[in-house]
């Protein structure tokens, strides 16, 4: 949650709203990568796609 707040603060301070859609999608992807890296669950997670 703290990280999301940081990124929101970043977009607001820098006023770079056109980055919002790309950053949102990349953050979701980042979560998947972080959760699955080095984990035995990765094949189950990626099977969803």
């Amino acid at each position, binding site marked *: 949650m703290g*990280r999301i707040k*940081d*990124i929101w*603060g*970043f977009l607001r*301070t*820098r006023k*770079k709203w*056109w*980055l919002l*859609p*790309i*950053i949102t*999608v*990349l*953050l979701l*992807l*980042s979560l*998947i*990568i*972080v959760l*699955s*890296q*080095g*984990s*035995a*669950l*990765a*094949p*189950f997670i*990626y099977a969803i*796609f």
Partner: protein
Amino acid sequence: MGFYDKPFLKFERLLETYLAFAPSGLQSYLKSMPLWLKEKLWMGDLIKKKLHGYKGDIKYPEHHQSHAASAFFPSPFEEAAIITMDGVGEWATASWGTGRGNRIDLHSELQFPSSLGLLYTAFTYYVGFKVNNGEYKLMGLAPYGKPKYVQTILDNLIDLREDGSFLLDMSYFNYCQGLTMTSDKFHRLFGELPRKPESTITQRDMDLAASVQVVTEDIVLRTARYVRRETGLQNLCLAGGVALNCVANGKILKERIFDDVWIQPAAGDAGGSLGAALFVWHQILGNHRDADGVHDLQQGSYLGPDWSDNEIESWLTAGGYPYEKMTETDLIDTVSDGITAGRVIGWYGGRMEFGPRALGNRSIIGDARSESMQSIINLKIKYRESFRPFAPSVLLEDVEEFFDTDRASPYMLLVAPVRASHRKELSEEEEKLFGMEKLRIPRSDIPAITHVDYSSRLQTVSAKDNPRYHALISSFKKKTGYGIVINTSFNVRGEPIVCTPEDAYLCFMRTEMDILALGNCLLKKEEQPPLKSKDEQCSERQKSSEAKSKEELRKFGLIMTGAFAALSVLLYFRNTSLLPPAAGLSGFFLLSALLYPRLLLPVEKLWMKLASVMSYIMTRVLLTLVYLLAVIPTGLIMRLLGKKPLQLDFKGNMKTYWVTVDPEGPCSRPEKQY
């Protein structure tokens, strides 16, 4: 705790670069993004995890703020102008400002993609050396060439202003959107494709190196003069990768633009960590800084780890390696005898150097008077190109005896000419030689450290900074009359400088070094047992790292039990024939985990391999989708609306390309990652 840049701002620059160049750039995007998404975007969490639950604050000074802090805070000056130049930080590629007491302030910056560091790196790449690694080779190659291409560079690649600010014509470069530094247009301009690594270096390569070196010096000198005028300050502090260009540094001193110059020895990004720490200590926490105008606070840059004689002896004894324990006086006497006899010495002891230069604690040492020593050390010890010059360590009190300078250079960051009294007259025929042919002609009575243009990148050694090393060179001087030796870093090409006694021993045994001084223990090559083969050592290390503990396998088994159990529940509601095998696998993993986890070892190996392959492929597939569906459309829409994330218009009509640093911008919020 301080981290040396602002990850979110860097990420912003990356994304905006892709937006500016979309649809080009997919390859570069696919290469950089996985690491960003895995680690760099979560830097705070990563630092805390790696520091085992550190709970304090983390500050994020801007990249060039960190460089500036690393240049000013350890310097001897109470106040000074600061210049930083490198490849790129967040957006800035160079900056200047001032330091006073315990505070630094950046005034202006140049912004990506115009970068002196990247211009130099582009030529490094074009001449066939490794990017971010071979820049010092290009600098070493420059004196062999003639600067024939300076005008071509100035007319085509760069729009340079009197104040040292400039724009690059990005149509000649490919580093924003591609995996190479230079574009086809660059290759057409200079008439050939980039030189293939390991192919023969030609006179043309040397001329290119000489040309970009002249342009670099021109930019650095213009910037230094401008900053001197603007700040009115008498002293200068330098940092950033470009400050490792000791030839350009030497020019600043020679031109007497500033009364004195101090350069951070770890001028590259490694030094950014030191800068970030000092920034937090002085500027954020407000701690006082003492500056006496003479002595710096870098402690000789001997800031790394140390091994005591007892620890070294225990390691040697445990390994069964023959050695002789000596008093320091005897050791120094024996080693200086060895140097006099033309032996190559591995010299190890005390705290490791911080920064890219070995300064006498992790050094390979030889006789600077020897005509063959440069190629012996290059080809038999360092396994590198024979043109690469060596640097001397000279007693501080003898520097004027050998070189045209009266300045101390304790960190090997200054270049000075060898004194005329030590030079040898060249015959007319020798004067006419070109390129590498010049290498074979001894140019002074200390030929191993005299470059083809009579220059030398020297280290002055004082008894105060490094008494052991000073005593060694003094002992050599007593025997030969020369208070000067070759000093090159203790490593072989492509490997880092040795850190531990084990690193030093392995490097000693794998090269043709004759003697190794490990602390006060002396090892002779001929007495050592043959080294275990590389494969044997690797496989031993591999075995120990691969050995999975019982607990890890049990954890794996339980995770798989849970995953297959969840799958079974799903399959139950779908009523398919796959339910029994899924439930069976869940049971198998549970029983194995509880009763005999070792049974799971081959399954775990195969499964984790599958996981890693799937992660690799799926990450790239999903990233490509994001690029196609989000990055390209956003980039194209921005261009239609006239929004330009990067300054790409070449030859603008601005008087200067320096951009004033916003006092309320990123530099003013070290607590934020942006």
